[in-house]
């Protein structure tokens, strides 16, 4: 089983649209995982039906037992996040401000405060409208993504792939360069970098590639909207050459992209587009490299 992770560094480059297209092209050979859990939206394109859902816990939250609280104010004094609020002389925890550090529980003279695991969202095992296993998660408002949640989504996807003899796990990776994207990359066999020819597109590509390099994972790059700025597009090509990154394809700016999105379809479901051809070629190249 080979794990392919699609990342972009910069948002809005078309990462999820391209990942969903790969999923369609892979057909029965793939388990899909959406690790972009902050703003998970691959489900809009793949319209999955959830088979199994479970709560996800990450971090802790202080809880005050009102009956045991003597309103002494010690928790209020020590909290560095201003998460203890006094409303009508009653001490309460502001759930959005609390970081779960546990200092308040430690100083409470009546042991009225306990730290409880924080429910931050749900993860689901589902079937896409193409009848492929799909693992995804949805975070609650104000909850933060973590390496732990990404690792969990990926683990379930890998188990599912092994159980059903699927040759590929396709991961829509997390954005940025932090802990969640480290967790997205860890264990991958191939990384697809999706970028666009803009100053920030190139800048973020370079940043995220530093991470990929650290993990020594073979990488390929798709330049989306390659024709909107030819100068930066050729700068990107130079960078790919220097770093020995496979140039998978250039996608032209094409309103098919937008049309597919407004129809809740993947790009490869729109016939006779140049983009469809280029994405199909990229997918074939990736398979060739992996096998």
């Amino acid at each position: 089983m080979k794990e392919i992770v699609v990342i972009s560094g910069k948002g809005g480059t078309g990462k999820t649209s391209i990942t969903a297209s790969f999923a369609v092209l892979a057909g029965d050979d793939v388990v899909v995982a959406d690790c972009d859990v902050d703003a998970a939206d691959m489900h809009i394109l793949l319209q999955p039906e959830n088979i199994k859902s479970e709560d996800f816990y990450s971090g802790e939250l202080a809880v005050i037992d009102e009956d045991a609280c003597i309103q002494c104010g010690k928790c209020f004094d020590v909290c560095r996040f201003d998460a203890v609020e006094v409303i009508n002389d009653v001490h309460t925890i502001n759930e959005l401000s609390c970081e779960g550090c546990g200092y308040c529980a430690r100083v409470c003279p009546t042991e009225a405060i306990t730290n409880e695991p924080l429910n931050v969202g749900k993860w689901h095992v589902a079937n896409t409208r193409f009848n492929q296993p799909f693992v995804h998660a949805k975070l609650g408002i104000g909850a933060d993504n973590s390496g732990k949640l990404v690792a969990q989504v990926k683990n379930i996807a890998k188990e599912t792939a092994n159980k059903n003899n699927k040759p590929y796990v396709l991961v829509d990776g997390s954005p940025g360069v932090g802990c969640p994207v480290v967790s997205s990359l860890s264990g991958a066999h191939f990384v697809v970098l999706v970028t666009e020819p803009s100053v920030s597109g190139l800048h973020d590509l370079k940043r995220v590639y530093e991470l990929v390099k650290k993990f020594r994972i073979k990488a390929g790059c798709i330049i989306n909207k390659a024709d909107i700025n030819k100068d930066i597009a050729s700068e990107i090509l130079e960078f790919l050459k220097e770093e020995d990154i496979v140039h998978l394809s250039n996608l032209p700016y094409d309103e098919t992209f937008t049309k597919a999105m407004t129809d809740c379809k993947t790009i490869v479901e729109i016939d006779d587009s140049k983009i469809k051809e280029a994405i199909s070629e990229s997918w074939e190249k990736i398979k060739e490299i992996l096998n």
Partner: protein
Amino acid sequence: MKIVFTTEGTEWESKMDPRFGRAKYFMVFDEETKELIPLDNGDVEGEAHGAGPKAARKMAEAKVEVLITGNGPGGNASKVLEKLGTVSYIGAGDMTMKEAYEAYKNGELDKA
């Protein structure tokens, strides 16, 4: 030489875990005494953030000289391992622990 492997199980035939920070197990092998000691890394699996540096701390406690893994540690963990003088070998993610040890001895693994 004390060598640590990132693995999914505790036998020589167990598959390697390509990950460092969130590896299931660290198997510490002492080449002199031939002793193989498992370190369960389950506690790190439950950490929301900072799995790499926490796992690196375990390497310090176990006093290992060589790390054999798949992708290699990330940025933060690498810094800790470098300070410890632990040498990391990568590219063993799809092997069993036994195969990884053979590959290491034959000089077939890359240094991170």
